[in-house]
């Protein structure tokens, strides 16, 4: 019985709603974690997985309360334990790796001082011991220059390195359990694969147990021995990784496994004047050149996907096309009409014909305007619709994006992420654009919700002949909806063409890196991919690495 490191029984956690009334986040979950085992917790946002992860440290977020149940760590009850006991346990017996390492490190102190802090304060290590251990782990997690790495400040290392540094911080005091809360979600695919491999390696060698929380089933399948699927604070299904992947029992798990099966109809290229044409664009922020000679063409009613990791210049391209960032040189043509580079010089009608949908619907909607005001404004601004006519059109647009008419009077805060993104799309549609730029529109959404939004975009395209410039780092999305693909790397286009051409080998080495970094829903994908890359390197082929290195 004592082989279990962590035992959680019938745990209930409540939080506080908008107006202060309590509601249950975790509704009676039990779990067991043995030494050396990795347990994956998976579910959409709001499933209670992060709350549960924090609870295994005996911690509840501000406003949350551990109401009922029991959390035993190595036989010690944490629920209701005095703060003194919890302090000696946290960081030493159980450690936490947060989603955003950038927000978890203090920018004013050197990395090493923060990394060894818990071990020295609670773990009984001397500073020298903790430093030596940290250096050993830097090497283990494949961080560059292990001897000097800790001397840097958080802003001097990349996102992927910082996430690994945080893992080191958790590992230095040799805890029994580490809780990983979406440790790779904020990273690019190309970086994610490396961090994931490093974490997997470290856990295996150090013999620690881990709770790995994520919304990405393909990802957790690479690292977990066992998976628990959560939904709305309840356990849906639990089982060994292989069983969850290949023989899911619950309908919800099946839906998770089968996500991203959206498929577009292949459209023949049209010979007409392209909706949007970009020729030889160079752009810079100050002295920093971010786009080099970018040329692409978007035909009427088609979708061009621009893919690349962060820093590749794909969002900058969107800013140039919309006029927010005037290019240094090059031309932008909209349906045969040359557009001025700067926003201020474009006519109202030119502005209307290009619409942008943003990544984060939370900040793209004014929280103090109702949905009707938000969608109605372009109707009034561009077409002069007012009163009953405007209202009628707003309701029709809501129907277009599959939202109930009752939403018109609501405020954005009352909507879920997916619903907000639909409102953003409705606002863009209200302007009756020819080109819609979608900047990572699905990356802030849960897989199933994202699927719904993609289906909506495809349907709208089929009905109205809209052209999409689709910016994303998610190749599964690209496969699902693109007609043409443009691969960008460090501000340059490295490959472009029809989807089937780009996706079939031989690839450009960078395209290859991107494609092979997307986690696939099968056991052993991670090890196999990494082994393949090593083998190809050994054969002397050109294998690119993420710019993050």
């Amino acid at each position: 019985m004592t082989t279990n490191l962590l035992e959680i029984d019938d745990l209930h956690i409540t939080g506080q709603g908008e107006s202060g009334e309590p509601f249950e986040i975790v509704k009676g979950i039990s779990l067991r974690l043995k030494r050396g085992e990795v347990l994956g917790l998976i579910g959409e946002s709001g499933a209670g997985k992060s709350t549960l992860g924090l609870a295994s440290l005996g911690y509840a977020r501000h406003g949350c309360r551990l109401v009922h149940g029991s959390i035993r760590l190595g036989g010690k009850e944490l629920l209701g334990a005095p703060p003194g006991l919890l302090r000696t346990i946290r960081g030493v017996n159980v450690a936490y790796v947060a989603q955003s390492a950038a927000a978890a490190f203090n920018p004013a102190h050197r990395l090493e001082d923060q990394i060894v802090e818990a071990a020295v304060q609670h773990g009984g290590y001397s500073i020298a011991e903790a430093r030596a251990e940290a250096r050993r782990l830097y090497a283990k997690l494949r961080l560059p220059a292990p001897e000097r790495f800790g001397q840097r400040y958080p802003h001097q290392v990349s996102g992927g390195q910082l996430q690994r540094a945080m893992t080191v911080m958790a590992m230095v005091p040799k805890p029994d359990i580490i809780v990983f809360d979406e440790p790779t979600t904020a990273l690019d695919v190309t970086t994610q694969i490396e961090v994931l491999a490093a974490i997997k390696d470290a856990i295996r060698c150090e013999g620690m147990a881990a709770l790995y929380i994520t919304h990405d089933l393909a990802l957790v399948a690479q690292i977990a021995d066992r998976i628990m699927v959560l939904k709305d604070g309840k356990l849906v299904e639990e089982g060994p990784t292989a069983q969850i992947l290949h023989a899911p029992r619950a309908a919800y798990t099946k839906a998770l496994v089968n996500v991203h099966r959206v498929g577009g109809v292949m459209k023949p290229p049209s010979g007409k004047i392209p909706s949007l044409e970009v020729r030889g664009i160079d752009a810079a922020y100050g002295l920093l050149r971010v786009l080099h000679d970018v040329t692409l063409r978007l035909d009427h009613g088609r979708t061009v996907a621009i893919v690349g990791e962060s820093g590749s210049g794909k969002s900058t391209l969107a800013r140039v096309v919309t006029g927010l960032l005037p290019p240094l040189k090059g031309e932008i043509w909209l349906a045969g009409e040359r557009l001025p580079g700067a926003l201020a010089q474009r006519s109202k009608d030119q502005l209307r014909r290009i619409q942008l949908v943003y990544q984060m619907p939370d900040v793209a909607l004014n929280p103090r305007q109702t949905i009707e005001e938000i969608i109605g404004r372009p109707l009034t601004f561009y077409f002069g619709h007012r009163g009953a006519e405007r209202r009628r059109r707003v309701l029709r647009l809501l129907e277009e994006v599959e939202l109930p008419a009752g939403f018109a009077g609501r405020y954005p805060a009352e909507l879920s992420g997916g619903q907000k993104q639909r409102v953003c799309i409705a606002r863009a549609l209200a302007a009756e654009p020819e080109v819609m730029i979608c900047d990572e529109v699905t990356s802030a959404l849960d897989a199933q919700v994202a699927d719904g939004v993609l289906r909506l975009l495809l349907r709208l395209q089929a009905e109205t002949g809209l052209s999409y410039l689709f910016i994303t780092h998610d190749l599964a999305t690209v496969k699902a909806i693109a007609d043409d693909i443009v691969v960008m790397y460090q501000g340059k286009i490295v490959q472009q063409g029809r989807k089937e051409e780009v996706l079939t080998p031989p690839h450009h080495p960078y395209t290859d890196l991107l494609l092979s970094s997307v986690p696939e829903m099968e056991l052993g994908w991670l090890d196999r991919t990494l082994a393949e890359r090593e083998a190809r390197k050994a054969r002397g082929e050109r294998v690119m690495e993420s710019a993050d290195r």
Partner: protein
Amino acid sequence: MKTFARMPLSAKAGLLIVLVFAFAAIFGPWLAPHGEAEIVGDVWEPFSTTFPLGTDSLGRDILSRMLWAARNTIGVALAATLLSFALGMTLGYVAAVVGGWVDLVLSRLIDTIMAIPTLIFALVVLAVLPPSLLTLILVIAVLDSTRVFRLSRAVAMDVAVMDYVEVARLRGERLPWIIFREVLPNTLPPLIAEFGLRFCFAFLFLSSLSFLGLGIQPPAADWGGMVRDNANAISFGLIVPLIPAAAIAILTIGVNLVVDWQLERSSTVRRRA
């Protein structure tokens, strides 16, 4: 009504104080038993049924003058604060939303004004200009607007980088729409709290100017001036000058209690959002 029931005790007390003073300011002239500058008795008469708060250095009824002064003091402070907010907020928002050299010029100009000690600046300007209520309000408003500018620029900066403001820009919206429809509603809570605070400062500033003889000119009554007129009474063991001083203190406290509650409310709302 629901908000009132949920208010903490301190905010209720503050609101009560503010309402009492507002009542006095609005209806003071009708409530006052005597005229504003009417000499009705001896110098510094003690409290009595005829003169509930005694008389002042010229034999005027203190209670009447307190009520008359409420309108002058609060009126000038309120007008000056409203004006300073109109000015400071508009400039602050323009600086934040337009940015670039507009922001640079405005910010440096405001910095220059702020570099000169406020009281000295006011003393110099008021000594040069003809004394009138309007100049007084304008001087206080302009000096106070520098602080409002700094705050509104800072809060508007945070909002101006939001995607929904960019959406409005991309739509081709003009500056007034961006400022008043997109930015203003989202920056209001901290500014409302600041309004209460700045009102207190304007009020204290006016009182100190009056005390120095440059504020509201006699025979018009105002609390700061009343403290000065009766300052000598202290040496005779009389509490007359403390009465207007107490009025100033109590209103300041009252407004601050309400402001504290507002601040608390706006910050919790933002934490949730």
